[in-house]
């Protein structure tokens, strides 16, 4: 239940020609579940390690509940990290692993036993206390690592790539567990991931980081609908980008004039880019739409279960559209088609 402020954080390594973390500012509210998202090597784990105190920042500050953490040794920060490969201490059994943090605090053994039992129930592994880490599956190890991290009621929980080492079917289960536990305990949580889908599914807010720089820090929904720039849009699966110019409160493109309702019109530069998510594009064989409708040619049709994806050429521009497979019109390759870009779904952004 703690609030974390990161101020102008900078960290360089001699082996890198640019700062690993470059002037990052972040304010994380109490109880939030935040994802640090970015490609590997973008500096997100470095930030985590600075929060834990394993790295010292070159400059900037990390403030937890109005108090700077920088001069507090790692073990006294109340910040617990769960590493990507779990790092269960191999020569301790599960009970000893989970109880480790309380033992460090000198808590009475009976209380530790009690707490360990509770934690193992919380992560739904009540009967494995005497096993050694080697005897556990990957998913079980992850849960034990989580229980071990949570036992001392950390002020901040840090998860480094919590799902990346798990099989697909375990991921969903684990994701649900993390969300459930996080909501139950209301612990401020930061997790690091390179997978935008994971970030979207789990996080209240996502901090998108490229090359050590924070790109944006906002809710997942906004990343989809109103990305800040083309890089962010692309990272979240954006495929349709149309160059545009401001023109009479609307936008002019080489497929024609596009009506735009976005609230950021005034912030837009003269030259900007329109994006729209493939699932928001509508298709019609007959020109049923009165607004933002353009004629094109179907280039390919790919059926992928619940959805079908179309590639359409409009005036040399390729757009991608994804429609629910159920109740589809019969659209085939080389058909002529009308493409509708709903004006409330398009989003323009600066380069």
């Amino acid at each position, binding site marked *: 239940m703690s609030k974390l402020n990161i101020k102008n954080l900078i960290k360089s390594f001699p082996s890198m020609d640019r700062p690993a973390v470059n002037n990052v500012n972040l304010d994380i509210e109490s109880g939030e579940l935040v994802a640090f998202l970015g490609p590997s090597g973008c500096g997100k784990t470095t930030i985590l*390690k600075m929060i*834990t*105190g*394993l790295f010292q920042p070159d400059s900037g500050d990390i403030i937890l509940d109005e108090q700077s953490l920088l001069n507090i*040794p*790692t*073990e*006294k*920060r109340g*910040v*617990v*990290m769960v*590493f990507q*490969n779990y*790092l269960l*201490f*191999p*020569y301790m059994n599960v009970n000893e692993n989970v109880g*480790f*943090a309380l033992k*460090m*605090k000198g808590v009475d053994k009976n209380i530790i036993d009690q707490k360990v039992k509770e934690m193992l129930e919380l992560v739904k592994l009540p009967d494995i206390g005497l096993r050694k880490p080697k005897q556990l599956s990957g998913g079980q190890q992850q849960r034990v690592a989580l229980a*071990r*991290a949570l036992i*001392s009621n950390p002020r901040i929980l*840090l998860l480094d790539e919590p799902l990346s080492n798990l099989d697909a079917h375990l991921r969903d289960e684990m994701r649900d567990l993390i969300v459930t536990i996080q909501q139950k305990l209301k612990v401020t949580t930061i997790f690091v991931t390179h997978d935008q889908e994971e970030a979207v599914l789990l996080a209240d807010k996502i901090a998108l980081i490229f090359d050590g720089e924070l790109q944006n820090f906002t809710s997942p929904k906004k990343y989809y609908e109103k990305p800040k720039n083309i890089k962010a849009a692309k990272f979240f699966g954006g495929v349709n980008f149309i160059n545009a110019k401001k023109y009479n409160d609307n936008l002019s493109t080489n497929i024609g004039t596009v009506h735009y309702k976005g609230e950021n019109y005034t912030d837009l530069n003269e030259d900007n880019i329109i994006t729209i998510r493939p699932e928001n594009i509508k298709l019609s064989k007959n020109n049923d739409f009165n607004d933002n409708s353009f004629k094109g040619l179907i280039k390919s049709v790919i059926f992928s279960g619940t959805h079908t994806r179309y590639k359409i050429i409009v005036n040399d521009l390729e757009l991608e559209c994804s429609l629910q497979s159920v109740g589809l019109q019969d659209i085939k390759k080389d058909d002529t088609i009308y493409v509708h870009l709903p004006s409330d779904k398009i989003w323009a952004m600066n380069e």
Partner: protein
Amino acid sequence: MNNNLKKINIYAIYLGAIILILPLIAFFINAFSFRWFYPQVIPKELSLQAWVRLKLIPKPGQRTFEGFIELWASNPAVIKALLNSLSIGFLVTIVSIIIALPAARVLGLLNFRFKKLIIFIMVSPTILPPIAFVLGLNINFISWGFSGNYFGVCLVHLVPIMPYVVLTMTGIFANYNPDFEHQARTLGANKTRTFLLITLPAIAPGMVVAALFAFLVSWSQYLLTFLIGAGKVMTLPLLVFSTASSGNPALTAAISIIFIFPAILILFFTSKFVSGESGATSGFGKI
């Protein structure tokens, strides 16, 4: 593999094993015989005279409990040498590990300029012969007052030991994940407890191997102890060497048994680490 071949193979192993322990058998027979000369295969006279001579077993007639106690309390040369060898061995082992630990960690975990050169320098005492440095060192040690005392002998033993300890432990740290320590730190363990509870158990198997090498190198050191100890620090190798050239095989064999027994005992208790998967011995593949 067909069956005949397998049998031959096994017999070859047995033959090898017998050849290997033949000297040991000779030691035992010699140590308990008297006037065991060619061509006797089995000694005609069995005797404890070598042990009586070494003052480890009392003379006939005094072989009571008190007799043993009294004899051993008289501090016979062999026991003095044994205690010296053991204590020097343990001391230099511990010191060398303490000295080598931070260096091995840095060499195993980090990459930096001149690392190869530094490893080469550390290893050089295994390559260049001890006689090349100890003859020159001798005069310096005498003028520094390190000659003829325990401290000087311990100090000079560190030289041949250091490469083995550094190499073995570098091997351990090359396969070591320092994030375990980070994990413990974030879970609230301070630096000391992290070292004791996390680092130490993780490197312990390799450290046992390093300690084994260190102890054995010190244990069997003759030339360095002889020159630097100036005869005043009497260890078992010195005793074995002088006895071996004094021409009493029974006595030589008896001292040799005392000399090898602790070493074999230590190997026995550490063998699972030595041939195990700790990877410590394969540290030698890295030079």
